[in-house]
């Protein structure tokens, strides 16, 4: 919050769009702002009404460099926009840097996402420390299939204005905490020497020389990839990371999706009855990739690009003690680390037995 928890004293709030960016059609700008206000009206009793003349509570404009409020913008990138907290005159007003390229997708800065953030300020929210929150001060593209307002933002705005009557999407995503004792993981892979650990719409980057893991939103790296991953592995010889979600698989080369992807998992040789993959791990010494789905697993020969004969086999038979299912897995120094709920199992590939049982969070040094 701003000092003294500044907020509007009324719930019917007006806004006026003073000018438009040439980057988008007027109708696209109107829609972006309307959607951005709806993000907040869905979770509060606030109503937003557009006016076309006179002074509105929230005056919206595009400008570049010094644009009339003595808080100049700085040219392309850097500062994208700013907004004043509730109050008279400039209070509530939102300004967008015309030197940015504004877009309705991920090609430029997504106007809807930036506007939703700025209107948070216009209503009385300051910046959040939660990297998953809309009010986190660094721009992150989160996809254009509508924004599910994160829980941190909902809690903030409802402290100021209370809850609304009809929240159409009551499941507000929480940002995972790496040292949560109940933490479970979606997928793990290596990526050019770093560990990439997927959980919901985020992944942690864990560099071998860093103790602290960085939390990043999947969409900010790969806008076209779904915001939840089932399984992942790195094929280091061709510098590809493969990500699985449902029946689809994507191959990534750094930020780019490899041509020809996404593919259906059946193209790898899975039977049609398999609806998705729970975990994948590439064994460097053998060149084989193991895929875990339900209680069974498959072995894929990367060199010949075929599923090996004799599979699927039961996980329990070949990896006794790790449980019937696997959430995520990775290989390191001859060990496979299997994650199952809040536990991880260190499995020696050659002696075929569990060496250690660890907590899932120990991957983060918790």
């Amino acid at each position, binding site marked *: 919050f*701003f*000092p003294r928890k*500044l907020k509007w004293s009324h719930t019917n709030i007006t806004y006026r769009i003073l000018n438009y960016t040439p980057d988008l059609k007027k109708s696209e700008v109107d829609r972006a702002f309307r959607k951005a206000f709806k993000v907040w009206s869905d979770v509060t009793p606030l109503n937003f009404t557009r006016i076309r003349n006179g002074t509105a509570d929230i005056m919206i404009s595009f400008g570049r460099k010094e644009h009339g*409020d003595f*808080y100049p*913008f700085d040219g392309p*990138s*850097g*500062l*994208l*926009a*700013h*907004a*004043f*907290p509730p*109050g008279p005159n*400039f*209070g509530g007003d939102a300004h967008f840097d015309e030197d940015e390229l504004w877009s309705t997708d991920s090609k430029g*800065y997504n106007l809807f996402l*930036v506007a939703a*953030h*700025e209107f948070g*300020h216009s209503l009385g929210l*300051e*910046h959040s*420390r939660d*990297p998953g929150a809309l009010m986190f*001060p*660094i*721009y992150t593209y989160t996809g254009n299939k509508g924004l599910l307002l994160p829980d941190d933002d909902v809690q903030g705005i409802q402290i100021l204005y209370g809850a609304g009557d009809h929240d159409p999407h009551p499941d507000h995503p929480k940002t995972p905490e790496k040292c949560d004792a109940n933490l479970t993981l979606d997928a793990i892979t290596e990526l050019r020497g770093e560990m990439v650990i997927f959980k919901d719409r985020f992944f942690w980057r864990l560099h071998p020389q860093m103790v*602290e893991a960085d939390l990043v939103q999947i969409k900010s790296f790969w806008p076209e990839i779904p915001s939840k991953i089932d399984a992942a592995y790195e094929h280091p010889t061709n510098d590809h990371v493969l990500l699985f979600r449902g029946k689809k698989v994507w191959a990534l080369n750094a930020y780019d999706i490899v041509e020809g992807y996404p593919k259906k998992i059946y193209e790898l040789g899975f039977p049609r009855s398999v609806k998705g993959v729970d975990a994948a791990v590439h064994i460097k010494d053998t060149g084989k990739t193991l895929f875990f789905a339900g209680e069974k697993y498959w072995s894929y020969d990367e060199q010949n690009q075929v599923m090996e004969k004799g599979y699927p086999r039961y996980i329990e038979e070949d990896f006794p003690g790790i449980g019937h299912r696997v959430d995520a897995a990775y290989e390191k120094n001859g060990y496979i680390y299997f994650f199952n709920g809040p536990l991880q199992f260190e499995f020696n590939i050659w002696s075929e037995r569990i060496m250690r049982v660890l907590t899932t969070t120990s991957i983060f040094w918790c």
Partner: protein
Amino acid sequence: LPISISDEDDSDEFTREKFELAERYLKRHYNLQSNPAGIQRKAGDTVTSKLREMQAFFGLEVTGKLNEETYELMQQPRCGVPDIGEYN
């Protein structure tokens, strides 16, 4: 520049340009005040405290020194919500 660059490794690693960017960033987002000429050592300490504040906010290692990680974050696109104290 009114920023602490007393350690040799710091001055080797960062150019004057990078320090200027850091100072602009802290002035804009952390209300770093410009100090009159002649008290640069004190100003340097202020930069250190603002750097600490910024590093703590973003969950970086709090060193009070400009390092690569902090500088990288300063370069990312962000929101510039005007400071309410000044507005009032």
